[in-house]
């Protein structure tokens, strides 16, 4: 009796979160969304924190009479886990380039309809058709970060070479990024190899080099962007490996902190815009992406985040301050002469295990 009363009480409570599925309106495109509840009025975007100018979002909301919900994630892995669980219905996500293929294979993305993205023409050709997504079937470039060498010029001005860290000199204090692909990648670039190499002999060379580097007196450990930035502001270290954008934001507080790109070349990681397969509002998602690809808006994004824009049309519209920073705008030739490597996905198997082993060894010291 009582039990029945209790369940009678609980059931409506639990069901009040449910709703009836409306049959999807016939959507164009090769993928029919399995679930559609899009009323075309709310766009849900899954993005890194502080990675979009809120004013741009507000303007889009006003222009289209819609609401944009921004949810943030803190790592590509956490984002993937949540999307694969299928719990959250987002329209757009902002994965880094090396996660795009993983998401495609997991069936999380829907192909883009290029006809709805006329502003795609604004993107510099060097950033289109990249190895992580040939033909840009699923992703368009959003903003990117090269990895550079940061310093505080009141304390020490380095040469534009990785030798500052990887060379024999043992008098400088420095930190490395807390990221296996960035650290091993930088060592590989210093040695003149690709940051995505699967050549075991090259990887062994990088390993031997890095063993010596972390044994240096000046090695102050591995750190993320914010930590390195704070140490440079406090003049605690001479050099730090850092994403250019993470450092540039600190110039607001102290213009003596600077960043450069080593002449051997470096790694870049591109964050991309993708439309999720389960997106309730694919139309609106395309409209928002095209809006972000606009020249003015692209410039406004970078002026806000201090990350580099792949948007060629936006380049001249950047704030003067940003235009003058070479590390933010690597020479166009670098894109084609192999000096800038997108951090790529590694094939599973021996090379990947070797990357893992090198990293474990370095971290356990």
């Amino acid at each position, binding site marked *: 009796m009582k039990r029945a009363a209790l369940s009678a009480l609980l059931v409506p409570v*639990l069901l*009040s*979160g*449910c*709703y*009836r*599925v409306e049959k999807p309106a016939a959507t164009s495109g090769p993928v029919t969304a399995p*679930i559609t*509840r899009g009323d075309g009025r709310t766009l*849900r975007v*899954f993005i*890194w*924190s*502080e*990675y979009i100018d809120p004013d741009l979002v507000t303007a889009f909301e006003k222009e289209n009479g819609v609401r944009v*919900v*921004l*949810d*943030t*994630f*803190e*790592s590509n892995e*956490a984002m993937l*886990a*949540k999307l694969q*669980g*299928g*719990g*959250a*219905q*987002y329209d757009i996500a902002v994965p880094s380039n090396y996660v795009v293929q993983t998401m495609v294979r997991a069936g999380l993305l829907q192909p883009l309809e290029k006809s709805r993205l006329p502003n795609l023409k604004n993107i510099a050709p060097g950033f289109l058709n990249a190895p992580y997504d040939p033909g840009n079937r699923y992703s368009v470039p959003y903003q990117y970060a090269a990895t550079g060498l940061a310093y505080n010029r009141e304390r020490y001005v380095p040469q534009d070479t990785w030798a500052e860290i990887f060379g024999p000199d043992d008098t400088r204090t420095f930190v490395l990024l807390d990221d296996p692909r960035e650290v091993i990648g930088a060592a590989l670039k210093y040695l003149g190899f690709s940051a995505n190499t699967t050549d075991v002999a090259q990887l062994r060379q990088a390993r031997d080099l890095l063993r010596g580097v972390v044994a240096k007196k000046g090695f102050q450990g591995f750190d*993320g*962007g*914010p930590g390195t*930035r*704070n*140490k440079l*502001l*406090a003049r605690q270290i001479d050099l730090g490996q850092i994403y250019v954008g*993470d450092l540039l*934001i*600190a110039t*607001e*507080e102290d213009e003596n902190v600077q960043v450069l790109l080593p002449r051997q070349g470096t790694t870049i990681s591109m964050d991309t815009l993708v439309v999720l397969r389960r997106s309730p509002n694919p139309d609106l998602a395309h409209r928002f992406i095209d809006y972000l690809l606009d020249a003015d808006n692209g410039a406004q994004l970078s002026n806000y985040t201090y990350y580099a824009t792949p948007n060629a049309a936006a380049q001249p519209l950047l704030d003067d301050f940003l235009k003058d920073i070479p590390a933010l705008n690597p020479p166009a030739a670098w894109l084609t002469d192999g000096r800038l490597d997108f951090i790529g996905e590694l094939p599973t198997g021996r090379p990947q295990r070797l990357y893992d082993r090198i990293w474990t060894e370095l971290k356990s010291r």
Partner: protein
Amino acid sequence: MIRRTHPALSVWAWLVYAFLYLPIIVLVVFSFNDSRFGATWAGFTTKWYGVLFARTDVREALTNTLTVAVVSTLISTVLGTLVGLGLWRYTLRFRTALTGLLVLPIVIPDVVMGVSLLMFYAFVRSGLERLGWTFDNGFWTVLLAHVTFQISYVALTVRSRLAGYGPELEEAARDLGATGLRSFTHVVLPLALPGVLAGALLAFTLSLDDFVVTYFTSGSGFNTLPVLIYTNVKRGVTPDINALSALLVLVTVVAIVAANALLRPRRQP
């Protein structure tokens, strides 16, 4: 004779406390720092608290956090108290196994719990979809997830509160003519109440602080404060997040102190 603690031991104790609490104190102090990056001290300011309260996402997350915490605490306190009383009062056949099941949500890593709930919801959703119904993860899924781990804490505090008493108290009440309900409300419940309240406060604090389980079970557009803080920290802590963390620490400390006060055994006259 009990000897006084050796002075070296109390020095050691203070060092341990300093080690535990200095980072939190630094965090609180730096929430008043007039520098965006917090690396160096740039003067005292309370502006970050102003910035904080001007943020709509923070206000929204605060509302969500408190709503989930209050409602889930209410549900789990009722259910957990019933479980605790049941374990105390009845000799059950699988008592050890049941107690073990109760401890499980406490010892299981959060991430396992979060992911398994995420998958469970996906499973339920796919079943419902076949019937033409669906739901989004959000308030309800987070609420249920919180209740699942809170019940254990409430049940165990209630049970340990009653552990010293035998069933004879209730029997005596019945002998004196009390009905079942009356002996429950006048004898058992008052005895259990400190445990119930302490369990409720513990549950409330846990709900307030939980990140991992909430992250995995919440859907789009539904954030709680811990989720908001954690996802903001990756790109560098902005001082308004320091201020927010300081406030969260404050609320947690108050709740814990209150729980301790309630748990302290009261001497019966």
